[in-house]
């Protein structure tokens, strides 16, 4: 159904928050303040934003190594996310997980995941639990194009279909698995076509158009909630940064990158908002300024947060 102005502006704010967050992480990573591996969502903001807009309290999402955007779209604390990525004790995971394992159980966020394709069975399980406990919940599973070549994709979609589980599989086809282009790792034009192998619908969406993702996800999630079973949505998008920060991207051309930058979901949506007279340029800038402030505060929060106590090393291994 048609969106009201505030909702539209919320979508924009969401995408802007992810963008600002990721650019800030990139900056501090390059300055050596953030350790480990960092995979940024820059360019793909419309996918998580459009999909998570439809989630309710009891819903779950499963994510990937590129999980910051999913976490933010699901409503995770920006401060605690930043603290986690900085490895501080106030982080979402007390600094024990980091970028690749950022999670928030209170939001049904099953976590980023360091193992590609491992989120799919987890989402199937969360969807199973929703059906089993009749919570009316759904599980949304984000995963990449290359991930769709892992056995977990196959086993998970088949099981979700056979058990008719409320799981919405959202493929983020950004054209690459590290250096492997989609054309080279899969001999098909659309990953959505794989849905037929499990007797579930599969659709293709412009992943850089937040409204397109929003509408497709709305229908899919409604359907899943109503007991209609799983569905596969392929969002065609592109990551503007390297696979991980520090990646020289020798495997792709500037032309390709620039062509996609021209389709950047943020300016595209702000323009659309203005055309639709939903927002003035000033209002957009206002949001951008507010978001920038939020992120700056998050960095301050992270910096202020103490490092984990060594006593934390062997806690949280078991629950008793």
């Amino acid at each position, binding site marked *: 159904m048609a969106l009201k102005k505030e909702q539209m502006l919320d979508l924009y704010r969401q995408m802007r928050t992810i963008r600002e967050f990721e650019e800030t992480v990139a900056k501090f990573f390059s300055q050596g303040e953030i350790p480990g591996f960092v995979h940024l969502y820059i360019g793909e903001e419309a996918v998580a934003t459009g999909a998570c807009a439809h989630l309710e309290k009891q819903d*779950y999402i*499963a994510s990937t190594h590129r999980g910051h955007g999913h976490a933010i779209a699901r409503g995770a604390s920006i401060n605690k996310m930043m603290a986690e990525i900085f490895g501080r004790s106030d*982080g*979402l*995971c*007390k*600094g*024990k*997980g980091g970028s690749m*394992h950022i*999670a*928030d*159980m*209170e939001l*049904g966020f*099953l*976590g980023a*995941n*360091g*193992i590609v394709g*491992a989120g*799919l*069975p*987890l*989402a*199937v*399980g*969360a969807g*199973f*639990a*929703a059906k*089993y*406990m009749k919570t009316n919940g759904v*599980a949304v599973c984000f995963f990449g194009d290359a991930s769709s070549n892992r*056995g*977990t994709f*196959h*086993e*998970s979609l*088949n*099981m979700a279909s*056979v*058990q008719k589980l409320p799981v919405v599989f959202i493929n983020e086809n950004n054209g690459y698995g590290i250096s492997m282009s989609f054309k080279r790792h899969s001999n098909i034009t659309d990953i959505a076509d794989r849905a037929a192998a499990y007797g579930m619908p599969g659709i293709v969406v412009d992943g850089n158009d937040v409204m397109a993702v929003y509408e497709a996800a709305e229908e899919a999630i409604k359907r899943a909630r109503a007991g209609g079973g799983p569905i596969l949505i392929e969002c065609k998008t592109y990551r503007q940064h390297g696979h991980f920060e520090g990646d020289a991207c020798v495997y792709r051309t500037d032309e390709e990158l620039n062509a996609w930058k021209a389709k950047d979901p943020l300016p595209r949506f702000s323009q659309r908002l203005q055309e639709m007279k939903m927002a003035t340029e000033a209002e957009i800038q206002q949001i951008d300024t507010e978001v920038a402030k939020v992120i700056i505060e998050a960095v301050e929060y992270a910096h202020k947060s103490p490092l984990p106590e060594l006593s934390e090393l062997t*806690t*949280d*291994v*078991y*629950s*008793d």
Partner: protein
Amino acid sequence: MAEKTYSQAINEALEEEMLRDEKVYILGEDVGAFGGCFGVTTGLFDKFGGERVIDSSLSETAIVGSCVGAAVAGLRPVPEIMFADFLGVCLDELFNQGAKIRYMFGGKAKVPMTLRLACGGGFSGAAQHSQSMEAWVCHVPGLKVIMPSTAADAKGLLKAAIRDDNPVVFLEHKGLYGVTGEVPEGEYTIPIGKADIKREGKDVTIFAYSSMLHTALAAAKTLAQQGIEAEVVDPRTLVPFDKETLYKSIEKTGKLLIVHEAVKQGGFGGEVAAMVAEEAFDFLDAPIKRIGAPFAPIPFSAVLEAAYIPDEAKIVAAVKSFF
């Protein structure tokens, strides 16, 4: 007390816990009306229906992975993997997901899942249907590992495992399914992490679990006739491990023989010997001995398999070489 088979005891534990807690469900291949490859879930489908006793497609990664997800989401899954030999197809879900989620998430998640697997040889199942893989899971922080040897232990420990908030690997020996033993009437659980002295003795400590516990008891009987009183310690749980009971026994006997069916090299027995050599060294008055399978896959031919799996004669000989 009533005589029941190991398989019946496990079946009762499953039924009782499913009656007790609606969040408990079973997912596995042919566990439904078929009753499971070894008949362990027989009758549960009729009692609880297909919503709680669920036949899975042939997809072990999805079985274990979905159960981890469901556990995090609040259920108490009891997945079944037909043979422990199949761990290799679903290990990531167990060791990188199930075992680590709580820690990686800063203690904010629980994974109350009990993974049941049938292990062990002795019936010409050959190299891919007879293995004992406990050493792998005992090396993974976040998992608990149980290997019961008797019907009573199997029932009490499985009930405790299902109620435990952590991922538990519950290894059942195929050769024990038909073995009967006294099982207490009514409701009871056995604490995870407590060893049990299955036979008292003063001369030597034999450490054995699962099917080998019975082989060790038989050997102890034979040894008794020859004047050697062996104490037989059954850890029952490998992780967490009950050191006290074992060390106390060694303090008394001064001699330790470790026995398991798994391949000796890299087996859990090595860890036990190392613990003792590090922490109870002074109790020892002789080198620690270990018996395990030779460093080879498990052969099909019955004559070869009989020579492969540790037996009473090997245990008796090893103990006598102490004296």
